[in-house]
């Protein structure tokens, strides 16, 4: 038990009692933070640990969301089983995309563009996919909010808060486990120097595929959450490239490759975005796009002046130990 463990346990305890203290609005903000922390963590497995830049992660959110939602709505299959199907679909998509790219050693720029291409291809495909409503959208039946039905994931926002918290904890735990274990060392070896990793006997193709698959599987769960929390899915929204960018903001601003970066980034960005919303509402200047401009500026400034993200800076201040020089800070 060191300082960071204590801090982490205290944070978790606070998060567990939080719904009792917050009103509906703040609860919805917390849900957003946990959601972005989780998808950020999922993306970070691929980019932060293994060095494979995905700019199309909305693909996995959308596929996961549509799979679980369609199974529930068409066949009444409960979301807990739908989740498994969503994971299967996303792992299949991740494997196909990864295999296609890594087989020929497509990396860097080309790989990032390939991920965009897959997401866009799928977006347009779903817009013409009548079984799930096409571009008209797909809707999950809404029920009484005060009746909590854990089995079907229907009910009060607090239910979704705990669902999101569980996901965030899962993402954190998977990342922590990856950073400690052999798999994570292989990932980081590939990230830092692919040729050296290959020379040292790491099966580069296989471990890159694992990274994409793990990331895709986690993101599938985020999609299931998205579907059942918002109850409506539009291809134009869920697969759109701006969604993919939203996903990567938190880990980049928080600190790529770190364990706590995505969480911190999600908290900072969501608070910033909600604060901007409030300010704009109060000033009566609600023009679409203003928020995104500020996002763009924040992103640009972050990458210019804090290339490692916020977390490494704070972690050093707080005196949490650094585990490895590659930026993999450890908070737990």
């Amino acid at each position, binding site marked *: 038990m060191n300082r960071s463990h204590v801090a982490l346990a205290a944070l978790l305890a606070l998060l567990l009692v939080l719904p009792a203290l917050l009103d509906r609005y703040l609860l919805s903000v917390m849900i957003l933070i946990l959601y972005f922390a989780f998808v950020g963590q999922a993306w970070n497995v691929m*980019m932060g640990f293994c060095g494979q*830049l995905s*700019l199309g992660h909305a693909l996995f959110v959308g596929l996961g969301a549509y799979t679980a939602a369609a199974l529930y709505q068409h066949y009444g299959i409960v979301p807990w089983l739908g989740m498994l199907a969503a994971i299967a679909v996303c792992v299949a998509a991740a494997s196909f995309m990864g295999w*296609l*790219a890594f087989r*020929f050693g*497509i990396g*860097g*720029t*080309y790989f*990032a*563009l*390939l991920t*965009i*291409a*897959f997401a*866009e*291809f799928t977006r*347009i*495909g779903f*817009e*013409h996919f009548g079984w799930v409503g096409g*571009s008209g959208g797909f809707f999950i039946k809404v029920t009484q909010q005060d009746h909590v039905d854990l089995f079907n994931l229907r009910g009060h926002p607090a239910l979704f808060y705990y669902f999101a918290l569980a996901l965030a904890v899962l993402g954190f735990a998977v990342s922590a486990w990856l950073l400690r274990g052999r798999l994570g060392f292989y990932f980081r070896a590939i990230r830092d120097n692919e040729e050296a990793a290959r020379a040292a006997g790491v099966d580069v193709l296989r471990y890159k595929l694992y990274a994409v698959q793990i990331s895709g599987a986690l993101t599938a769960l985020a999609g299931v959450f998205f579907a059942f929390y918002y109850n409506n899915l539009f291809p134009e929204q869920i697969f759109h*490239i*701006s969604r993919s*960018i939203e996903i*990567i903001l938190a880990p*980049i601003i928080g600190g*790529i490759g770190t364990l706590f970066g995505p969480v911190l980034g999600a908290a900072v960005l969501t608070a910033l975005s909600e604060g901007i919303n409030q300010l704009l509402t109060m000033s009566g200047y609600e*023009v*679409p*796009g*203003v928020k*995104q*401009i500020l*996002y*763009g*500026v924040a*992103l*640009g400034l972050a*990458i*210019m002046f804090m*290339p490692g993200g916020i977390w490494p800076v704070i972690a050093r201040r707080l005196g949490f130990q650094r585990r490895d020089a590659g930026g993999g800070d450890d908070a737990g």
Partner: protein
Amino acid sequence: MPVDAIANIVLSGLLTGLVYGLMALGLSVIYGVVRIVNFAHGELMAVAMYAAVFAFALAGIDPLWLLVPMALAFFAVGYALQRVLINPFIRRPEHAQFILLLALALVIVNALLVAFGPDARAVQVDYALDSYEIGPLLVDKVRVICAAVALLACAVLFAIFRYTSFGKAIRACADNLLGAQVVGLNVKHLYALTFGLGVACVGVAGCLLSLLVDVTPGLGPAYTLLAFVIVIIGGLGSMVGALAGGVLIGVSESVAGLLFTPSAKSMLSFALLILVLAFRPQGLFKAR
């Protein structure tokens, strides 16, 4: 479907494709020399399109008269962008460069949205509906002019790289950066010139496209993606490939609009991109 109708559609796709090719050429030139993927490519073009639309709406200036001033202005913008914003990122990892330009793109597209709203705007020149009749073919006059100008602009760019001394210097930077530095070339300046040339292509292409399509802020990201698709199909960094890729995508888009619903047309482009990346990742027109 009668043959001449199909021929018409293919021809119109080919002509539009040449304009796409000019846009993609800018991206390809920048990547080929500076090794930076300009994620704000389409967004910069949307700026040019808005400039053309407003010059027409406010002062009645035909976008074709704007070609040279726009090319010069965008050259300056590109030069400044590279010097101020991008040069410090030359040695940074790829994802950092991506994110910087992504941030720039986000700011541009949303600034357009805030300034001009989401409504589509168009340039209505008085020759917009004229067409030429060549045998059984019926070709839009505007499209022919745009394609001809795009070809001319490409030729000018080729000539700059081939025959001017700074074009030669830029090619030296692309071929052997260390060697270029050793013989005393000012690489920062040359990189900025290249970025300027690439962005000037976008300025010209934007003027031309303002005659062919209605402008919305959302065109920015859409054209960025289109430019990526084109240069990857043609081969990133290859000039001929960009032009040929543009024509290929222009034709495939118009044929797809014929075969499927028009809204699904870019699906074919992305499918082509995935196929090319899967089987010929270096692009169709580039040696491995």
